[in-house]
């Protein structure tokens, strides 16, 4: 990790720790000049980015978490059977504006099904979903068109909300950049790597500024840096008042989310665990 990478990681951690953007700019710029003046290894001079960020957050203070707003997604009593197999039993979730909910559970326990039901793409056998606001859904796979360029995707999706071509392109490229991807190159989607295609997918799902964002393990194929950018982006969207539901099997991010729905099915003889 060179100085620039360290500074980037440090900035990301400060963001996670809810340090005000203005303070982040100053603290990172100051650390950068210090490293330029002294030429030391940032790991020796400042230590690990996360630990130093925590110390800084304590020194400058942090923004209070915005109070969650109105309920934007309410799912209750969701039950879904495929043949004789019950995939979901009485699952429920309530997400407010400014909250991130993680849907977790073992493979095959209905996480994607639950999300598709929330998106209105599948219907439950019982239960109901109430939404308030515009919805975007980012599937685990697909969602991009093989022969279109990233810019053409932006224009196509942006047109759905009456964006001009140039506005859509600009918005798409800006969002892609926040995910660490320079999307202006004219490369058709089928030639993008799996991780980059997912960035395109993510960019498209936020392009129309949805109120509710449903993401089905959208980070497959991401390297570590992209993964950090992705969570940064989620926290930004949360702070902007979006309601976000993200399916995940990676539990190390759970301390950053506001709600957890565990869909792990009942153990025989044990307590049902449907959130």
């Amino acid at each position, binding site marked *: 990790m060179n100085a620039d990478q360290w500074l980037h990681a440090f900035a990301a951690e400060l963001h996670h720790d809810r340090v005000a953007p203005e303070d982040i700019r*100053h*603290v990172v*710029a*100051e*650390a950068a*000049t*210090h*490293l*330029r*003046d*002294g030429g*030391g290894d940032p790991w*020796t*001079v*400042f*230590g690990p980015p996360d630990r*130093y960020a925590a*110390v*800084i957050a*304590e*020194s*400058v*203070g942090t923004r209070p978490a915005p109070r969650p707003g109105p309920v934007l997604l309410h799912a209750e009593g969701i039950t879904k059977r495929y043949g004789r197999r019950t995939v979901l039993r009485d699952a429920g979730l309530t997400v407010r504006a400014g909250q991130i909910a993680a849907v977790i559970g073992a493979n095959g326990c209905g996480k994607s099904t639950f999300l598709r039901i929330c998106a209105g793409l599948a219907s439950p056998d019982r239960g109901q979903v109430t939404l308030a606001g515009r919805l975007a859904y980012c599937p685990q796979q697909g969602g991009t068109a093989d022969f279109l360029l990233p810019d053409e995707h932006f224009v196509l999706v942006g047109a759905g909300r009456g964006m001009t071509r140039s506005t859509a392109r600009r918005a798409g490229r800006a969002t892609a950049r926040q995910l660490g991807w320079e999307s202006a190159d004219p490369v058709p989607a089928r030639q993008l790597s799996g991780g980059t295609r997912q960035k395109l997918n993510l960019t498209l799902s936020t392009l129309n500024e949805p109120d509710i964002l449903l993401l089905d393990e959208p980070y497959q194929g991401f390297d570590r840096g992209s993964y950090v950018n992705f969570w940064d982006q989620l926290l930004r969207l949360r702070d902007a008042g979006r309601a976000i539901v993200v399916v995940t099997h990676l539990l190390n991010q759970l301390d950053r989310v506001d709600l957890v729905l565990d869909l792990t099915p009942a153990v025989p003889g044990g307590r049902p665990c449907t959130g």
Partner: protein
Amino acid sequence: MTERRGQWLRGVLDLCVLGLLRDHESYGYQLAQSLDAAGIGPIQGGTLYPVLLRLERSGLITARWREGTGGPARKYYRITESGQAALGRGGPDWQAFATSVTAIVTGGVDG
């Protein structure tokens, strides 16, 4: 030994910074160099900047970004009136404390 020095320093680094800023403004890297030159030892940025931020937040110092001569913009720190007052109280406190410690420790050395 280094660990003990680190512990001592933690208690007085804010006073040392105020002392260095008493007569003229300075920036982080320069302060670190001054502390080292004064014999306190090398101070890493990770130790120094949190102290500067806390002093700034409690109003004992102020900061502003300023272009250096031909160099990049740096954040210069300057002591405030309440910083001067804090130094005026803390300095003698430290002196009294250090004198007492010296008296006891010197006895140990002699014995």
